[in-house]
C-alpha cells in the first residue's frame, strides 16, 4: 500500500521537475520583450478605452506612444495636458500641450423653432432615420433627436432635453473624446476650444439652404446674411454654403456678432448679461434676458426674432 503512494509521489514529482526544465528553456527561447514603460504609461492613462485618441483602447495608445519618437498626432483628450505631462516624464520627453476642447451641438432647432411637417414611426435611431429621409421637419441638416450621441457618450456628458428635443452637452463632463462627432449622421457636433469659464460663442446651425428656404423650416436658422461676418473685427467668421462659421481659434469672444444676428442663430454661453444699450436692435435681442434674469444666456438670442 505504502509503496503505491511512494511510487505515485516519486513519478509525479519527477514528471513535474522534467516539465519545469522543458518549460524553462521554452520560455527562454520564446521570450517576448515588452517595454516596461508601456505598463507605466498605461497606468497613467484614464482607462476609459473611449477611442478618443484614435486607437482601440488605452493599451494600444500606450504601445504607440512608447514606440514613437515624438508626440505628433498622439494625444489623450480625456486625460488632457496633465496626463500627457506625466506620460512625457516617464518617457523622458517634452510634452506638447494642446488647448482643451469641448463638444458643441451646432443645431438649435428645438421643437418650438422648427415645426414638424411629417410623422416618423420607424426605428428610433438617428442613423436609420437619416438613411431614410431628411427628417420630420423641413430642415434636412438639423438634429433628428433620437439620441444616438447620448448612447455613444462614455462620460455621461450628453443627455436629451425633452422640451427642446435636442441633446445637451455637460461641459464639466465632456472630455472631447469625439465619439459624438463620429456618431452623428448629420455631423452636428464640433470640438471647439474650451474658453475660460466655459464661455463660448458659436453658430448653432448647419443649414446650407438659401436664406429664404432655410427660414421657412426653422426660425433660428443661419440665413447666410453675412452681417456677423462683416462686423467681426478679428476675421474669425467664415462664410461657406450660405452658412456662417465662427473659428474658435480666432474668436476673441468680443460678443459683437451675437446682437447683429437677425435670427438668433449665434449662441453665447457663460457670459454675464449684457448691459442695456440705446441701440434698438440690441435692446430687442436682450429684452428677454432682462425680463427673466434666470434664463441662461444661450436662450437669450433665440427669442429675438419670433
Amino acid at each position, binding site marked *: 500500500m505504502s509503496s503505491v503512494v511512494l511510487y505515485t509521489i516519486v513519478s509525479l514529482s519527477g514528471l513535474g521537475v522534467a516539465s519545469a526544465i522543458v518549460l524553462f528553456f521554452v520560455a527562454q527561447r520564446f521570450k517576448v520583450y515588452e517595454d516596461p514603460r508601456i505598463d507605466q504609461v498605461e497606468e497613467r492613462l484614464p482607462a476609459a478605452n473611449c477611442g478618443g485618441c484614435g486607437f482601440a483602447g488605452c493599451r494600444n495608445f500606450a504601445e504607440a506612444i512608447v514606440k514613437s519618437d515624438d508626440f505628433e498626432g498622439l494625444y489623450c483628450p480625456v486625460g488632457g495636458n496633465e496626463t500627457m505631462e506625466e506620460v512625457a516624464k516617464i518617457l523622458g520627453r517634452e510634452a506638447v500641450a494642446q488647448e482643451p476642447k469641448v463638444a458643441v451641438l451646432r443645431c438649435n432647432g428645438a421643437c418650438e423653432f422648427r415645426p414638424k411637417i411629417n410623422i416618423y414611426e420607424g*426605428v428610433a435611431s438617428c442613423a436609420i432615420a437619416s*438613411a*431614410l*429621409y*431628411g427628417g420630420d421637419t423641413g430642415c434636412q441638416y438639423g438634429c433628428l433627436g433620437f439620441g444616438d450621441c447620448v448612447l455613444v457618450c462614455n462620460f455621461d456628458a450628453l443627455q436629451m432635453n425633452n422640451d427642446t428635443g435636442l441633446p445637451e452637452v455637460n461641459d464639466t463632463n465632456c472630455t472631447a473624446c469625439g465619439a459624438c462627432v463620429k456618431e452623428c449622421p448629420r455631423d452636428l457636433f464640433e470640438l471647439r476650444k474650451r474658453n475660460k469659464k466655459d464661455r463660448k460663442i458659436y453658430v448653432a446651425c448647419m443649414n446650407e439652404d438659401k436664406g429664404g428656404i432655410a427660414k421657412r423650416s426653422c426660425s433660428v436658422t443661419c440665413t447666410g446674411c453675412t452681417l456677423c461676418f462683416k462686423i467681426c473685427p478679428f476675421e474669425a467668421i467664415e462664410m461657406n454654403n450660405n452658412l456662417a462659421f465662427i473659428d474658435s481659434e480666432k474668436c476673441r469672444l468680443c460678443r459683437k456678432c451675437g446682437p447683429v444676428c437677425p435670427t438668433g442663430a449665434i449662441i453665447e454661453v457663460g457670459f454675464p448679461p449684457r448691459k442695456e444699450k440705446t441701440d434698438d436692435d440690441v435692446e430687442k435681442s436682450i429684452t428677454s434676458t432682462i425680463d427673466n434674469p434666470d434664463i441662461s444666456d444661450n436662450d437669450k438670442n433665440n427669442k429675438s426674432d419670433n
Partner: protein
Amino acid sequence: MLKTFAKGGVHPPENKISAKSKIKDLQLPETISIPISQHLGTPSKPIVERGEQVVVGQLIAKNEGFVSSNIHSSVSGKIAKIDNVIDSSGYKRKSIVISTEGDEWDKNIDRTDKLITDFSCSSEEIINKVIEAGIVGLGGATFPSHVKLSIPRGKKAEYLIINGVECEPYLTADHALMLEKGEELMVGIQLLKTALKVDKALIGIENNKPDAIKHLSELAQNFKGINVYALKVKYPQGGEKQLIKALLNREVPSGGLPVDVGVVAFNVGTTLAVYEAVQKNKPLFERIVTVTGKSIKHPSNFRVRIGTPVSDLLSAAGGLPENAGKVINGGPMMGKAISDLSVPITKGSSGILILPESESGRRKVRSCIRCAKCVSICPMGLEPYLLMSLSRKNLFDRLESNRILDCIECGSCGYICPSNTELLEYLRSGKATVSQLIRTSKK
C-alpha cells in the same frame, strides 16, 4: 406544376385594383424637376444653363463615367433653375427645374404609333443607342442598362430573361404595358437578343396575369426563341436572382452577377424603352406609373413624364383621399413613404400607393421570440433575426460573414414577423454600413 423559386417567399394580398385600367397619358405638368441622380452610379452632369430653351427629348445632363446615365428633358420649355429640390430620397438633391411651354419634341423622334421591325442594327449600335437614350432598369433598381448589356470579357450570356413578374402587390404598370405594348415588347426582346448575342429569351409572368400570359404567348409564336412561362404567384419572384432560379433552376453565386450563370435579365419596361430608343430614336423621358390604393377614386396606370410631381398624379387619379395615412413611392413591400407631395417621378418610380390611416401605422414592436419564421421565408437563405441583432450591436465583421450583402431588401422578413420587429430597417442600415466600409477599405 408551375415554376417558382425554391427558398422562402411570402404571399401578401395582391390587391391589384388598377389591373383593368388602360394606360392614360397624364396632362403635362406646369413645372417639372428632374434630379440628376436617378440611377445607380455617378450622378450625371448638367449641360444646360438657366434660361435656356429645351425641347422634349433633348439631352440635359450627360453621363459621368461608365456606370452612369444620360438624362433628357421630358417637356419643352425653359430651364427655370438648377437647384436643390426634394426628391424621392427624402433629401434635397440637385435637380433641373423646367417650366413647361407647349409640347415641342426633338425632330429626330418618331412620334407615330407605327410598329417598326428593323433588325439590321448590330450589337454595338444597339448598346450605343441604349447609352444615348439614358436607359436604366425600370423595375426599380435603376441600374444603367448598357452596363448589363456589355458582357465582361471571359463571360458568356446564354439566356435573356424578361421580367414581367411584377410581384409587388398593388402595382400594375408592367401588366398594363404587357397587354398594350405586346408587339413593341417582342421587337425590343429581339433587339436585346442581338445586343447580347443570345438566341434564347424567356419571359416570366406570374400566374395572376393570365391575360398577359395568353397575349404574349400568342405574339411569341411569331418569333423564334422567345418563350413565355407562367409562374406560381410568390413574392419576391420579381427579384432577378429569384426569377433566374424559378425559370432556369440556376443559382447566382453569393456576391456574383446573373451573367456568372449565363443570364442577363431585363424588366418589361426597360425592354420597351430599348425598342423606343432603337426604332423610334426616343430617349427615356417617360414611363408607366400606377397610382393606386383602396381609398383612391380612380386607380389607374398613367404614362408619366419623368419629373412630374406626385401631386399631379394624385389629382389625376381623383385627389388625395381624406383618410390617407401614407403616400408610398413604389409598392407596399419595397416602396418608401414620401414626406412631400412635390417629390418628382423618377426613372425608378413604378407606382404611387396611398395607404389609408388604418393600414399605414406601425404595429406595436415586441421582442424577437426566435420563432425563425423570417429564416424560413428569406428568399436568399439568410438569417434575418441574427442579422438584425448584429446590426443593432454594430458588429459589422460578423454581419459580413453572415452574408448581409446578399440581402435583396425585399422586406419579406418584416412582413412575416409576428412580433413586428424592425427587421428590414436594421438589415438595410447594416448592409449600407458594411458596403460602405468595404468601399473605403478598398480605396
